C-alpha cells in the first residue's frame, strides 16, 4: 500500500510516497550526496560513511536511514560537509590517486568522481600501504593498497552470488579482503564469477584482462611507474589538476575502447552485459545494473569465458571433403557445391530426403531462416533443433496443462517465491546466475528450498529439505504429494473451479499414488512425502524449477505434466512468485523453437497442419508449403539408417557427440549423400561432413536471443567476423539464394520484422523496442505490450482454462545385473557441454582441465578407487574411459559423469536410443553400466586449485559491525559533534 507523508529537506517541505531511505529520497529530488560503498544492486553496506546527512539534528548514514513522517533532513552545512570530508579522507588514506596511470580510469571510477564532486584538493591522512601481497589468479586480482574497504565485493560474494568466499577481516591491524580463511585466491572456494570486480568502485578488485591494457600510460614498466607516481605527488598543488589530466586521458580512452552490449552465449539465463574491446582483444565483460535478467551478476563463463572467439582453432574458411580429407575452399566453391548436390538430391529423391537442424546457440532470426529454407526453398518440414535433446518434454507437459510452453514468470518471480522446489536440476552449476537469486532469497529473505535430486549438488546442500528419490521416479512422488494434498483438503478449490477443467477425472487418476506405494517406488519415506506436501500447503507461493533430471527419461513429458498438475491443484499459477519454471539450458533453446525450427510448427507454435496458418505463410513467402509434419532429430537419424534421408544440414550443433548412442548416430552420418555442418570449430560432427561452413559466434553478429523467461534481448556486433567466417543468417541466405530463394535481408531486424508479421505470439517484437538493454517477454501484442507474468487472466487453452492431465508412471529402463552402476550425467559450472568453447580458456581449463567421474566413498572403498584411478564404464551401447574423483556428492552405486568432453569420456558413448515416449527426447538419464578399474593410480583429474576444494566462510554481508567495534573507529558524525562541543 502506498503511504504518503510530508518531510522537510533543507527547510523545504516535500511529499514522500512509500517508505524509502533518505538516500533514495534525496536521489529522487536530485540532491546529490557522496556515496562510495552504496551500490543499487547491493543496497546499504554502511562502511564508507561518506553519505552522512542530518535527520532531526542527528548525523546519520543516508543509505541506511529510513525516512519517516515529519523528518527534518539537512544535507548542507559546514558540519555535514566536515563529517563527509572526514569519511572521504579515511578512504583516501586507503587509496592512492594515480588516476592517469590507472587501468580503472575510464570515467567510472567512483573515488575519482567523488573527489572531483566534493572539490577535494588535499588529504590529511596520507595514503599508506596495508603491507599485504597483491592477490591474483588468471581471472582477476586484488590490490590491498588500493582497497577502500567499502565491502561491496564481500556483499556481492556473500549476499548476491552467495558463494561466501570473501570477507573483510576487521580484526587485522590493517583490515583487508580475504578469501576463505585468508587463503590465496587459487586455494579458495572462489568460483571466479566476477561479481567482486564488477561491483568494485575502483581498481582494487580488477579483471586481469584490463591490466596494463586499458590506459595509454598504464603499460609503463613498474620500475618507471612508481617514480612517475611519486614525482606527480611531489609536484601537485591540489587534486584538481591531477583529476583534470586523468579526465582528459579517460576521454581519450573512449576513442580506443569499444563497449558493446551483448547477450551471453552460454546458458538459458540470458545474462546481458557490455563487452569492452580493443580491436579483437577483450579487456573485460561489464554487466550493467539495467540488464533485465542478471543485473550485475555473471558466472565464470559469461564473465571470463570468451577466449574461444579469438582461438586459432576457429574455422575461417569453408571446407570440402575430397579423397584425402578436407580442403579449404573459397565461399563461392562451397556454395556452388552445395547448390549442385542439394538440387540433385531434391530432384532424385524429393524434398523430404533433406533435413535441417537449427542451433540453440544461434539467434532467433537464424532459426527463422533455417525453417524458412527448409519449408519455403526446399519444401520439407524436416527441421528441428536441440531442444529435442532437452526441453521438449517440459514444453509438452506445459502445453497439455496450461497451453504455453514457457516459464510462468520471470527470474524475479523465482526470487520472490516463498517456496522453491528444484527437481532434477543442478541449477547452481547449470544456470548459475538464476541460482544466485534462489540462494540469496533463501539466505536473506527466508525463502524455503526443497531439492529432489540424485546428487547432493550445491543447491541440495543448501536446501531446507533434500530428498533423493530413486532414479526416474519423480512422477510417483509428485503424484503422491498431489494426492496427499487433495486428501487433506489442501487443494485450492476456488482456483480449480474458476480456472481448471477435468478436475474430478484427474483426482480419480491419483488413486494408485498412495504414500506407501510412492515410498516403495521412490525410496522416499512417507514423512518426507508429507513434509513436502505440508511445505507447499504452508507457502503462499510455490515455484517449481526442473530440468534434465526430469525430462531426459522415458516418461519425461509425463513427469513434467505431473509438476504442472501439482501447481494447478495448489493454485500456484496466475500470481507473482508462483508457477512452472522449466530451466532452459542454452542461451536460445527457447527462441529456436519459438521461431519455428520444429517439424510440426511454424514460428509461434502454429501448426503446419493448420491450413489458415499455412496459407498466411504461403502468401508471404510466395510458395506452396508442405502440410505434413516432418522428422524430428531422432527420426532423422533413423531415416538415414533406413536410406530415406540423404542430406542433412546442421548448424551450431555437435550432434555427433551430444545425441544419445553416438556410435549409432555417427554410423548414420557416414551414410549421408550430403552432410553440411556449419560451426565455429571443427567439431566431432564436422569430421563426418562433406562440407563444413565457418560461422561466426554471438560476439561477431547481430540478432536476438530468448532466455528461459521468454525474454527477447538484442545482441550487437562486438567485433568483425574472424577470417572468412560469416554470421549464420548470412550463410543460410547465401544457400537459399543459390537455390532460387531470392532473399534480400540487409540486417537481422528485417528478418525479425517478417517473423513478427507472421507470428501472433511475437506481433509487437521489433528492434526499436529491443534497443540497448530493453527486452520483451512473449507473448508480445502488436502495440508492444509484453507479458512478464505469463498467465494473468486465464490459460492459453480453450475457454481460457487449464487442464489437469492424468499421467501414468513409465518405469525407467532396466539393465542386466552386470550393469550395476547408475550413470547420472549433466553439467559442471565451469565448462559448457562438450567444451569446445570453454576449454579454449586457459584460465578455466587451468582450474578444470578434464572431465572426471564422481564416485561415492562407498563405491570407492568397494572397488579400490582413489582420486585419479582410471576406470572403464561399459553399457550395452558402448564404453568410456575416465579418471575418478571420490566425493560425497554422489551416493552408493550412483556415479556422475559430466558431459564436458568430446573425447573418450563422452557420456553418449554409453547412452541408448531409448526416448521419451511423447517427444522422442533421448533418455540420457536412464543408463547403467559396469565399472572396471583400468589403472589404479593416477593424478587426480581435478587440481587442488579447483574451487571445490575451498572452504567457504558464510556470513551475512560484510559484517560492518566488526568495523564499528574497532578501537580506532569513531563515527564521523560523533567526531564532528565532539569538535563542535570543544570549540563551541
Amino acid at each position, binding site marked *: 500500500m502506498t503511504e504518503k507523508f510530508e518531510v522537510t529537506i533543507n527547510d523545504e517541505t516535500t511529499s514522500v510516497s512509500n517508505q524509502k531511505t533518505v538516500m533514495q529520497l534525496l536521489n529522487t529530488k536530485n540532491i546529490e550526496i557522496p556515496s562510495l560503498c552504496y551500490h543499487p544492486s547491493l543496497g546499504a553496506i554502511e562502511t564508507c560513511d561518506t553519505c552522512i546527512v542530518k535527520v532531526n539534528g542527528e548525523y546519520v548514514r543516508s543509505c541506511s536511514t529510513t525516512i519517516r513522517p515529519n523528518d527534518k533532513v539537512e544535507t548542507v552545512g559546514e558540519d555535514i560537509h566536515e563529517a563527509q570530508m572526514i569519511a572521504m579522507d579515511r578512504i583516501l588514506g586507503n587509496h592512492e590517486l594515480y588516476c592517469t596511470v590507472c587501468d580503472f580510469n575510464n570515467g567510472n571510477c567512483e573515488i575519482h568522481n567523488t573527489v572531483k564532486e566534493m572539490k577535494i584538493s588535499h588529504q590529511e591522512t596520507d595514503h599508506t600501504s596495508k603491507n599485504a601481497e597483491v592477490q591474483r589468479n588468471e581471472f582477476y586480482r586484488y590490490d590491498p593498497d588500493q582497497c577502500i574497504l567499502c565491502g561491496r565485493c564481500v556483499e556481492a560474494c556473500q549476499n548476491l552470488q552467495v558463494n561466501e568466499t570473501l570477507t573483510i577481516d576487521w580484526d587485522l591491524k590493517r583490515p583487508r579482503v580475504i578469501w576463505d580463511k585468508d587463503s590465496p585466491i587459487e586455494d579458495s572456494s572462489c568460483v571466479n564469477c566476477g561479481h567482486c570486480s564488477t561491483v568494485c568502485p575502483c581498481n582494487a578488485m580488477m579483471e586481469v584482462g584490463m591490466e596494463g591494457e586499458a590506459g595509454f600510460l598504464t603499460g609503463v614498466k613498474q620500475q618507471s611507474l612508481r617514480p612517475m607516481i611519486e614525482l606527480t605527488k611531489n*609536484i601537485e598543488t591540489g587534486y*584538481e*589538476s591531477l583529476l*583534470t589530466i586523468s579526465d582528459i586521458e579517460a576521454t581519450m580512452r573512449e576513442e580506443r575502447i569499444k563497449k558493446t552490449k551483448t547477450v551471453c552465449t552460454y546458458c538459458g539465463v540470458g545474462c546481458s552485459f557490455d563487452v569492452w574491446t580493443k580491436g579483437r582483444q577483450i579487456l573485460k565483460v561489464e554487466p550493467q545494473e539495467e540488464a533485465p535478467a542478471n543485473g550485475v551478476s555473471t558466472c565464470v563463463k559469461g564473465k571470463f569465458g570468451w577466449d574461444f572467439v579469438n582461438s586459432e582453432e576457429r574455422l575461417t*574458411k569453408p571446407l570440402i571433403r575430397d579423397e584425402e*580429407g578436407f580442403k579449404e575452399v573459397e565461399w563461392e566453391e562451397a556454395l556452388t557445391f552445395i547448390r549442385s548436390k542439394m538440387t540433385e538430391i531434391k530432384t532424385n529423391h524429393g524434398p523430404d530426403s533433406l533435413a535441417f537442424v537449427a542451433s540453440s546457440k544461434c539467434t532467433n532470426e537464424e532459426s527463422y531462416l533455417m525453417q524458412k529454407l527448409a519449408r519455403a526453398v526446399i519444401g520439407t518440414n524436416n527441421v528441428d533443433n536441440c531442444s529435442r535433446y532437452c526441453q521438449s518434454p517440459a514444453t509438452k507437459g506445459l502445453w497439455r496443462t496450461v497451453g504455453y510452453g514457457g516459464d510462468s514468470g520471470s527470474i524475479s518471480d523465482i526470487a520472490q517465491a516463498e517456496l522453491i522446489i528444484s527437481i532434477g536440476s543442478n541449477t547452481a552449476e547449470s544456470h548459475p546466475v538464476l541460482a544466485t537469486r534462489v540462494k540469496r532469497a533463501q539466505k536473506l529473505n527466508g525463502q524455503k528450498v526443497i531439492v529432489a535430486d540424485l546428487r547432493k549438488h550445491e543447491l541440495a546442500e543448501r536446501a531446507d529439505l533434500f530428498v533423493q528419490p530413486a532414479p526416474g521416479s519423480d512422477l510417483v512422488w509428485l503424484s503422491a504429494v498431489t494426492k496427499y494434498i487433495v486428501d487433506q483438503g489442501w487443494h485450492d478449490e476456488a482456483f480449480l473451479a474458476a480456472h481448471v477443467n477435468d478436475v474430478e477425472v484427474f483426482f480419480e487418476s491419483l488413486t494408485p499414488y498412495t504414500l506407501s506405494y510412492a515410498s516403495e517406488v521412490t525410496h522416499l519415506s512417507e514423512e518426507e512425502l508429507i513434509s513436502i506436501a505440508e511445505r507447499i500447503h504452508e507457502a503462499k507461493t510455490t515455484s517449481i524449477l526442473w530440468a534434465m533430471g526430469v525430462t531426459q527419461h522415458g516418461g519425461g513429458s509425463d513427469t513434467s505434466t505431473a509438476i504442472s498438475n501439482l501447481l494447478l491443484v495448489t493454485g500456484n499459477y496466475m500470481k507473482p512468485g508462483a508457477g512452472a519454471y522449466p530451466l532452459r539450458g542454452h542461451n536460445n533453446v527457447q527462441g529456436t523453437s519459438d521461431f519455428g525450427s520444429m517439424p510440426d510448427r511454424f514460428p509461434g507454435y502454429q501448426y503446419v497442419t493448420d491450413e489458415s496458418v499455412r496459407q498466411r505463410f504461403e502468401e508471404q513467402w510466395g510458395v506452396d508449403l508442405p502440410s505434413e509434419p516432418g522428422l524430428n532429430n531422432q527420426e532423422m537419424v533413423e531415416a538415414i539408417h533406413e536410406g530415406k534421408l540423404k542430406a542433412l544440414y546442421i548448424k551450431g550443433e555437435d550432434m555427433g557427440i551430444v545425441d544419445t548412442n553416438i556410435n549409432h548416430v555417427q554410423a548414420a552420418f557416414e551414410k549421408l549423400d550430403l552432410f553440411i555442418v556449419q560451426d565455429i570449430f571443427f567439431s566431432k560432427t564436422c569430421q563426418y561432413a562433406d562440407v563444413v561452413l565457418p560461422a561466426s559466434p554471438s560476439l561477431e553478429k547481430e540478432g536476438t536471443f530468448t532466455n528461459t523467461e521468454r525474454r527477447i534481448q538484442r545482441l550487437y556486433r562486438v567485433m568483425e567476423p574472424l577470417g572468412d567466417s560469416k554470421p549464420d543468417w548470412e550463410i543460410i541466405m547465401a544457400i537459399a539464394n543459390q537455390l532460387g530463394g531470392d532473399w534480400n535481408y540487409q540486417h537481422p531486424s528485417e528478418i525479425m520484422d517478417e517473423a513478427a508479421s507472421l507470428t501472433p505470439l511475437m506481433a509487437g517484437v521489433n528492434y526499436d523496442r529491443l534497443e540497448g538493454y530493453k527486452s520483451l517477454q512473449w507473448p508480445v501484442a502488436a502495440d508492444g505490450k509484453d507479458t512478464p507474468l505469463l498467465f494473468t487472466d486465464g490459460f492459453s487453452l480453450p475457454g481460457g482454462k487449464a487442464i489437469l492431465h492424468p499421467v501414468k508412471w513409465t518405469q525407467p529402463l532396466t539393465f542386466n545385473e552386470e550393469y550395476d552402476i547408475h550413470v547420472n550425467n549433466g553439467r559442471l559450472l565451469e565448462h559448457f557441454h562438450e567444451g569446445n568453447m570453454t576449454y579454449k580458456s586457459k584460465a578455466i581449463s587451468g582450474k578444470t582441465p578434464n572431465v572426471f567421474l564422481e564416485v561415492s566413498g562407498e563405491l570407492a572403498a568397494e572397488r579400490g578407487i582413489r582420486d585419479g584411478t582410471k576406470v572403464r564404464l561399459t553399457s550395452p551401447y558402448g564404453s568410456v574411459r575416465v579418471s575418478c574423483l571420490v566425493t560425497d556428492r554422489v551416493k552408493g552405486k550412483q556415479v556422475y559423469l559430466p558431459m564436458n568432453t568430446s573425447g573418450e569420456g563422452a557420456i553418449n558413448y554409453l547412452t541408448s536410443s531409448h526416448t521419451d515416449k511423447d517427444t522422442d527426447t533421448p533418455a540420457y538419464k536412464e543408463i547403467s553400466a559396469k565399472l572396471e578399474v583400468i589403472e589404479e593410480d593416477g593424478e587426480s583429474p581435478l587440481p587442488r586449485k579447483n574451487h571445490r576444494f575451498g572452504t567457504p566462510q558464510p556470513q551475512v554481508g560484510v559484517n560492518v559491525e566488526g568495523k564499528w567495534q574497532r578501537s580506532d573507529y569513531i563515527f564521523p558524525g560523533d567526531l564532528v559533534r565532539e569538535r563542535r562541543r570543544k570549540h563551541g
Partner: protein
Amino acid sequence: MAKATTVIRKIEVSPEEQRKRELKELEDSIVNNRRAIIDSIHLIQRIHEKGILHIVESMLGQSDKILDRVLLSMEHPEVTGSIKNSFLLLEVLGKMDLKEWEPMIDKINTALTRMVEVQQSDKEKKEVTMLSMLRDSEVREGMSILLAFVKGLGSSEGKEKEEIVKQNPDTRKFNKNWLFFIGGAAVMSIPLFLKRK
C-alpha cells in the same frame, strides 16, 4: 560413405601471391587517402630537415633509460619544489584581476608623481603642517585606500577562498585547471613519447 576424418589441407598461398595481395591492399589505401598522405609527406620532410626525426628516433630507441633518467633528475626536492612553486605562481597570477587593479595603478602613478614634485618643490611648501594635509580630500582618500589594504591583509584567507568558490566556482576551476593542465600535461605526457613495455 563419409568416414570421420580430421585431415584439413589449408589453402596454400605462395609468398609471391601473398606479397601481391598485400601490395594491392597498400596501393588501394594510398590511393584512397592520397591527399592526407601527400600533406603528411610535406610535414615529415620539414621535420626531417630540422633533424627532429633523428632526435625522436634516438629518444624512442632509448626510451626506458631516458624516462628513468628524467624521473631520477626530477626527484630532487629542489626540482620538485621549483615545479611546484611555478605552478603556485601561475595560480597566483591567475587570481589577479588586473582590470580592477588599473585605477589603483593610476593612483600609485599619481602618488609617485606627486612625491617627485614634492621632492623638487620649495622648502616652505615641504613644511606644511600635518593638520593641513589631513584636511586635504586627496590625502584622506589615499589613507582610506591604504587602510582598506591593511584590512585585507588581516582577513582570513580560507574564508575568502570559500566565498569565491561559492560565488563563482566555475571561474575558479577554469583558471586553475587550465594553468595546471599546461604544467601537468607537460610532465605527464613525457611517457607518451617513450616506448611502452
